C-alpha cells in the first residue's frame, strides 16, 4: 500500500520553477518523502482514516492528497499562492480526490478560521 500511495503521488505535478516565490519558502515534498510521512501517520498513529485533515501551506497539495488517498474523510488545503493552488487543483483532479479535498486561498499566519474550530 505504501507503494500504491507513492505511485499516486508520483503522478503529481510539482511546483512550476518559473513561478516559485522565494518569500513563500516553497519546496516540493517529493513523492518519496510525502508517501512515507502520510503512511506513518496513517498506520503508526491512526491519524488519517476517517478524520478531517487541515494542510496549512498545502502548495501543490502533495501531502493533503496523500491524506485523502489514505482515507481522510475531508481535507482542507490552505495556501497563499494562487499559482500553487492552480497546480494543486490539477493534482486533486488527477488523483481523483475532488470530493474529499477542498482548497482555500489565504495567509496561513492569519487563518480566517473561527476560534473553536481550530483543528
Amino acid at each position: 500500500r505504501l507503494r500504491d500511495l507513492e505511485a499516486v503521488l508520483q503522478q503529481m505535478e510539482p511546483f512550476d520553477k518559473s513561478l516559485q516565490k522565494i518569500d513563500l519558502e516553497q519546496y516540493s515534498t517529493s513523492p518519496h518523502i510525502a508517501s512515507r510521512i502520510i503512511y506513518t501517520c496513517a498506520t503508526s498513529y491512526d491519524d488519517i482514516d476517517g478524520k478531517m485533515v487541515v494542510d496549512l501551506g498545502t502548495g501543490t497539495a502533495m501531502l493533503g492528497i496523500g491524506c485523502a488517498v489514505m482515507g481522510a474523510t475531508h481535507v482542507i488545503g490552505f495556501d497563499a499562492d494562487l499559482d500553487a493552488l492552480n497546480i494543486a487543483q490539477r493534482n486533486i483532479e488527477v488523483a481523483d480526490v475532488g470530493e474529499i479535498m477542498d482548497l482555500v486561498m489565504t495567509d496561513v499566519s492569519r487563518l480566517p478560521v473561527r476560534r473553536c474550530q481550530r483543528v
Partner: protein
Amino acid sequence: ITHNMLCSNVKGVQNGFPLRIEADNIEIIESEFDSEFISMMLEKIDYEVLAAAAVSLEYNELPPIADVNENMKQDEQFQRKVHHALLDIHLQDGRLVCPESGRPYPVKDGIPNML
C-alpha cells in the same frame, strides 16, 4: 464544511462569522457516507450556521435546530442529510460576504480567496 469554519479577517471586525453565501454556481459531488465521522462532526460544527448555509445553497432538507435532539443525532436519515450538506455541496463560483463589514471574498473554481 469549510464554510462552517471560515470567518472574516477584515481588520477591526468583531464578529466575522458566519460568512454570508452568494452563490453563482453550485456543484453537488456525492461522497462516501461515514456515520462515525458525521457523529463526531455534529459535536464540532455550528449546526444553525450549517442549516442556514445549506438553504442558501438550495438544500432545504435539514430540520431546524430545535428538532435536533440526541435521538435525532443518531438517526441515519438525519446523518445522511448532514453528510450531504457538510460534504457534498460545493460552491464553485460566488462570494462569501463578511456579515459585519460587507466585504466580499470571491470564490472561483471552488477556491475562496481570503487574502
